[in-house]
C-alpha cells in the first residue's frame, strides 16, 4: 500500500494498492475521525481483497 505507485512498480511489488498521500497513506486529516477511519477501512479491505486475488504479473488494484 503506497502513494507513489511507480516506485512500487519499479521495486517489484506484485499486488499494489494506491494510497492517499505520502505523510498519511492510510488517512486524511481533512476528514472527521469517523470518515477518516472509514476511508482507512476501505483501503485495508481493498488490500485484503487483493491478497485473495490470483495475479500472474505486477498488478495495481485501482478498484
Amino acid at each position, binding site marked *: 500500500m503506497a502513494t507513489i505507485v511507480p516506485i512500487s512498480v519499479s521495486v517489484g511489488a506484485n499486488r499494489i494498492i494506491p494510497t492517499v498521500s505520502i505523510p498519511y497513506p492510510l488517512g486524511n486529516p481533512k476528514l472527521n475521525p469517523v470518515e477518516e477511519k472509514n476511508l482507512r477501512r476501505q*483501503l*485495508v479491505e481493498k488490500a*485484503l481483497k487483493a491478497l485473495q486475488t490470483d495475479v500472474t504479473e505486477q498488478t495495481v488494484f485501482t478498484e
Partner: protein
Amino acid sequence: MSYRVLHYINQFFAGIGGEEKADISPEIRDGLVGPGQALNPALNGEAEIIKTFICGDNYFANNIDAVCAQVVALVKEAKIDALIAGPAFNAGRYGTACGAVCAAVAKECNIPVITALYPENPGVDLYRKLIPIVESSDSARGMGKAVPAMASVILKFLKKEELCKSDHSCLMEKGIRINMFYDENGAERAVAMLVKKLKGEEFTTEYKMPVFDRVEPRPAVKDMSKATIAIVTSGGIVPKGNPDHIAASSAQNYGEYDFANVKDLLQNEYITAHGGYDQTYANEDPDRVLPVDVLRDIEKEGKIGKLHNKFYTTVGNGTAVANALAFGKEIGQKLRDANVQAVILTST
C-alpha cells in the same frame, strides 16, 4: 624471466571426479592441470603456471579458513606473483571457493588475483567488492572466452599497466565509486548525454540505476477468515522514544514490536522515526501509516483469522537497497516461521 602463477581448480576440472569426489582434500601439483592447459598459452610466455592447487568443493566448504591458509602458505613458499582461480562459471561451491582463495591471497600476500564467474554465481555477491571477477557464461562452454579475458587482466596487473576498455567491459563492477576529473562540468555532460539520447545515439550513463529483482506473485489467500495477516512498514512507525534507534534516513536496522494487546496506535504511544516526510500527521495518529485500529476491527469481525502479534518497521528514506534487501529477507523468514499467510506492507 616470466611471472610465476598459481592456479586454483576443483576436483572436477582436475579430472579427478565429480560429486562423488567433492570431499577430496587439497593436493598441490607442479605445472598445469585441466584448464591450465588453455590458460598458460594465453599468458603469452610473460607469465607461467608454476603450480596448481586442487581442492574438492565440499572439502573446501567445510574447511574454508584452513584451505585459504594453505593457499596463502603456498603462494609465499613458491614465490608466486599472481593467483588465477577457476573459471567456475555457475558452479556455486566452486565459485565461492575461487572468490575466497582470491580474497585471502589478495589480503595476505598483496599480489594480483583473478577469477571468472557467471553473474548469478553466489560467489559474485560474496566477493565482488574485494576482488576482480571476470564475467563468464554459465557453463564450461564459455571457457574460450573467459580464459583470454582473465589472462589479459592478470598480465596488466602484473605489469602494473592500465586496464584497457575491453578489460573493463569483461570485469564485474565492484560497486565502488571513484572521484574523477572531467573538463566539462556535470550540467554540460548531462545536456550532452540528453542530446545524444534525443538523437537516438548511444550514450554511457555515469551512474547506473540499481536493478531490482522480480519475484513470482504468490498465490491468493484461499480462506482469509483463517489466515494470519502481518503488517510491515517502511514508514517508520515505532513505540515512542524509538527504542531501537532506527535512523531517520539511511536506516541500518529494523524494529520488531509486539502489539498483541494494542487495539489502536495512539498519539504519544507510537511515533514515526522517518525523517523524509512531514511527521505531523503520522504522530497525530500513527494508524494513518500502520492501520492497526481498522485491522483489529476486521479481526474482531472474523474477516481475517488473526492479526500477527508483531509488526516490523524500518525507515525507507535513502536506505541502501542492499540493507533493505537484507531486512526484507530476515523479516520474511521470521514471518514464515510464525506461519503468517500474508503481509500488508505500507509505505510512505
